[in-house]
């Protein structure tokens, strides 16, 4: 019993020592949209990241999970948190567009989004409420293809799950961001979505007000607009903020 307690005490001490070391330059916990999975660690490998559907991250922040920064694939969710007094004023930092990923080499000879109506196709998309799921519904509505929503064989919780279902061949087509498709270039083929149907995809970030490192968190949000960060975003396929 005593040995157990001693071990526990040592473990706690070690854990705190580790923490103390990190507080020199506070290691921030960044909750970020799944589509930022590859690019954020390139911008700053130092922080601790939790990637997921922006709506799940919103729910986690609402339930008090300790995040310092929130970066969402839309502006609505961070604004919703801002109005509740949970995060600072959201800052739009980049933009994106949607594409349809299909099996590499297009073995099913699909020619454009309307051909997804072909019976028997297994289409996946993100669920409503997930930013990319909402954008997908907008695209389909603009193209008069809203019935595809009910044809989907799975409603995923974030964009990377949609992507992996197509990469693994479990689905024939999936609606993702152009930047997600770029991370698996050579493993999938693309169907373009016409400009007229593209929704305005804006990414917004904010510092979480309950953060113990609020100043550092605010600075981190700001650095997303820096030349260096913007260059990395552009290299990953993200777009300039439309004026």
């Amino acid at each position, binding site marked *: *019993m005593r040995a157990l307690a001693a071990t526990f005490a040592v473990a706690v001490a070690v854990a705190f020592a580790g923490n103390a070391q990190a507080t020199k330059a506070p290691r921030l916990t960044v909750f970020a949209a799944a589509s930022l999975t590859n690019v954020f660690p390139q911008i700053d490998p130092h922080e601790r990241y939790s990637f997921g559907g922006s709506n*799940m991250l919103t*729910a986690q922040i609402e339930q008090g999970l300790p995040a310092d920064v929130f970066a969402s694939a839309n502006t609505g969710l961070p604004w919703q948190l801002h109005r509740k007094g949970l995060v600072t004023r959201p800052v739009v930092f980049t933009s994106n567009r949607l594409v349809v990923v299909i099996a590499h080499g297009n073995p099913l000879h699909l020619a454009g989004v309307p051909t997804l109506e072909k019976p028997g196709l297994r289409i996946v998309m993100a669920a409503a409420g997930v930013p990319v799921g909402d954008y997908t519904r907008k695209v389909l509505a603009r193209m008069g293809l809203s019935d595809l929503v009910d044809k989907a*064989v799975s409603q*995923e919780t974030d964009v990377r799950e949609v992507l992996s*279902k197509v990469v*693994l061949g*479990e689905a024939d087509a999936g609606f993702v961001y152009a930047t997600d498709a770029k991370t698996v270039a050579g493993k999938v083929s693309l169907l373009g979505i016409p400009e007229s149907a593209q929704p305005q995809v804006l990414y917004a970030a904010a510092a979480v007000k309950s953060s113990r490192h609020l100043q550092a968190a605010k600075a981190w949000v700001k650095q997303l607009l820096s030349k260096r960060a913007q260059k990395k975003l552009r290299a990953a396929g993200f777009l300039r903020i439309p004026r």
Partner: protein
Amino acid sequence: MFAAAAVALGFLLLPIVAIFARVSPGSLVSQLSRPVVTDALVISLKTSAIAQALVLLLGTPAAYLLATRRFRGRSVLVVLVELPLVLPPAVAGIGLIATFGRFGLLGGTLNSLGIEIGLTQTAVVLAVAYVSSPLYVRQAIAAFEAVDPNLVAASRTLGAGRVRTFFRVVLPLARRGLAAGEALSFARGLGEFGATIMFAGSLEGVTQTLPVAIYQQFNTDFTTALAMSALLVIVSGALLVALRLTLQWQPSRPTSRFLFAPSR
């Protein structure tokens, strides 16, 4: 000592108490009548029922053979049967995709037969059966091993065939262990999440089981997620009580008289 025990018990019980503390009985009832919840409950019960039927049908003979036959590599096989039990569900999900997925080991064969499993209800059944069957098979092996071989031998000498002996002697004697194993397997299958969401995806009314629905509702509507969690706590609790009762239940005396009655 008492403090440690109190902390341990509090740690185990508080999350369950917290679920019920945050959901009032009124909202529980109104939330539980939402289609997303009823759909998920139906899918969970349906896929669990099919999966458990498969587990019983295929697992029982497998367990009986492993319990009664001695052959080379038997102990290795017994350990391998238990392996899925300790595998993380995410690994099970990857394994199922690597086997039954379109590009999986059996994917080509299945595809040429026109069978697609990934992202269908069949995928849910396979995921549930995969993660839950070892619990049953393992318990069933132990139950069959505990059956006195002299009774089996006696039954055979008295003229009962193998099949008759199995159904009239072995099964009744092993039934408590089998029921306990099945209850555990059912409970584990009902909670299956990781392999399901990877291999079967999530579609309301088709592949969205209760745990998957809880995860998805957590993203949009915490109250509904709480209500569904409360529902699963109740169902799982009921299963646990059933399991306890099965383990305590003594086969009544008259049954044994019937067991040893000369067969005609």
